[in-house]
């Protein structure tokens, strides 16, 4: 092969590689795994005559790191509220053209205009979860333990009975929030003295816990190895579905502590580099239609801030206070705020001490 033919071949390959595989319009959705119902995607693809291409992340920090380094090409992202705030501060988001999102009227005003994004300039709520207690109803009844208070995972008086059968989330922020709530403080309390108290409570309870577990506790609950967890409402809902599908005699139930709990709201936002902001707006408006929004809730048991979705949601779900908190529970739920650098350093230090303690 002579040099010219070689060059032509290389050029041909390069053009082939660079050319988009589809001429069809594409919407790039950067989302959590399994966080949209397949039928919803199909319906949107039909409506917009486009293709939805999903890429996944498993942690807000992953998303932030990637975008901070300059990654481009994503249209819609679904970060949690505090990550939305960080993205706004970093100038990563495109303001939403509200005239293109009339369905925002369907969203419960309680979830709009939050301190994370005043006036919802950049974000609209998508779905939510609470961080609560999950338990094996048979075992907890047998042992006579309360399931409506954080005391059950922090107070040795109760823990003695379930030693080695309890797991807590492997997340400094979530566990500190729970401990602060248990002590009667706000989950967003930043007083170092209160943090020390929380750390002490965690250290005292730690010998009774089986593990810090953020990934396989659903499985452990379902199998019956673990009877009580500090976990996410979606996961606990899934665990119960799995337990019923496997024909277990017990149920995995959700317990909302009376002291209050952490609420995590995930929001739809448009990245500033979005190749198709027009499709992104159409998608956001589409997802705010009750039926589409309800499909996700029916699939994974996530909370839904959409008032129009209620009539499409399975009735057994709407009765769960952890998924659809009534007003009095709602008042005690808190969304976690970002920590400052100094606060984060202190929390990391306490967390390392906790992990290293016997």
């Amino acid at each position: 092969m002579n040099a010219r033919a070689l060059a032509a071949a290389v050029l041909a390959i390069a053009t082939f590689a660079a050319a988009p595989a589809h001429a069809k319009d594409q919407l790039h959705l950067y989302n959590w795994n399994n966080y949209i119902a397949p039928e919803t995607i199909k319906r949107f693809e039909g409506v917009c005559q486009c293709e939805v291409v999903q890429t996944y992340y498993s942690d807000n920090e992953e998303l932030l790191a990637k975008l901070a380094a300059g990654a481009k090409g994503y249209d819609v992202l679904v970060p949690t509220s505090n990550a939305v705030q960080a993205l706004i501060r970093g100038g990563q988001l495109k303001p939403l053209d509200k005239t293109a999102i009339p369905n925002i009227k369907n969203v419960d005003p309680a979830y709009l205009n939050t301190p994370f994004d005043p006036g919802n300039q950049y974000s609209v709520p998508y779905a939510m979860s609470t961080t609560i207690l999950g338990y094996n109803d048979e075992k907890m009844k047998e042992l006579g333990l309360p399931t409506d208070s954080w005391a059950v995972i922090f107070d040795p008086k109760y823990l003695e009975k379930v030693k080695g059968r309890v797991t807590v989330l492997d997340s400094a922020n979530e566990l500190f929030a729970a401990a602060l709530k248990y002590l009667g403080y706000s989950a967003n309390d930043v007083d170092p003295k209160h943090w020390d108290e929380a750390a002490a409570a965690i250290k005292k309870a730690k010998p009774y816990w089986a593990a810090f577990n953020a990934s396989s506790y659903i499985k452990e609950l379902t199998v019956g190895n673990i009877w009580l967890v500090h976990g996410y409402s979606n996961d606990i809902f899934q665990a119960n579905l799995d337990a019923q599908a496997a024909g277990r005699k017990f149920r995995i139930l959700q317990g909302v502590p009376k002291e209050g709990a952490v609420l995590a709201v995930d929001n739809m936002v448009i990245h500033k580099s979005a190749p198709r902001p027009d499709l992104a707006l159409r998608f956001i408006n589409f997802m705010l239609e009750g039926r589409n929004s309800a499909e996700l809730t029916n699939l994974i048991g996530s909370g839904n801030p959409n008032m129009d979705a209620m009539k499409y949601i399975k009735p057994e779900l709407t009765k769960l206070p952890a998924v659809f908190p009534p007003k009095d529970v709602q008042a005690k739920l808190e969304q976690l705020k970002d920590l400052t650098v100094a606060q984060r350093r202190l929390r990391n230090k306490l967390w390392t001490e906790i992990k290293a303690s016997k």
Partner: protein
Amino acid sequence: MRRQSPWLWTAALAAYAFLYVPLVIVVVYSFNDSRLNAEWVGFTLDWYRKLAADDDMLAAAGNSLLIALTASLVSTVLGTMAGVALHRYKLRLLPILVLAPIAIPEILMGVSLLIFFVLLNVTLGLVSVALAHIAFCIGFVAIVVRARLAGMDESLTEAARDCGATPARAFRHVTLPLIMPGVVAGALMAFTLSIDDFVITFFTAGAGTVTLPLLIYSMIKISVTPEVNAVSTLLMLLTLLLIVVAAKLSPTLLRSDREI
């Protein structure tokens, strides 16, 4: 021949069990009739049926294979050249340049490559991931090839040159066949490193580019279904097939006991 001691047999068996039992478990559980896959429930082929209909998972597996094949081929060629250069020319800077990517923490390399690609305005996608994988695989291939060359008798190449072979010809007919096991080992290593890399891939992959490790990692929070076992089983079979075919084509390829 002296009888082997039973202890040696036991040790060998234990070592093989340690290596292969986890793989066997992955395969066995791909037939498990339970979404959670925590305990054995019953036999089913459902997960393979689900996999056949799961475009996301198949596309991810396809991307992973394509990237791994490209990365291992290209990095084997470049890495072999680097290995030979490392062996032949005692340049002071060369070892640092070739071997640094092995020592650099993956996360640092991932972020740096991402920033580099963004600066150059390279669209993130399969191409950027493949380039990144080639970059970190070269060093590993070079090390293996250089180790092989270190044990080679230089006089063989010199003899070929004495008999009138050009340097290229001497390399093609004498050096390359002798270092082939090292080259193949390097290629296999590059393939393995590439196909299961998460960190560097995470940073260099663009919107819509999903590889198998990226997909599986994102599923961990929601629980990994036996579908992942099924796709892993298929990939294992494919890799096994590649090795068997390679061994068939050249029986001495994977053996390093040839005189050198």
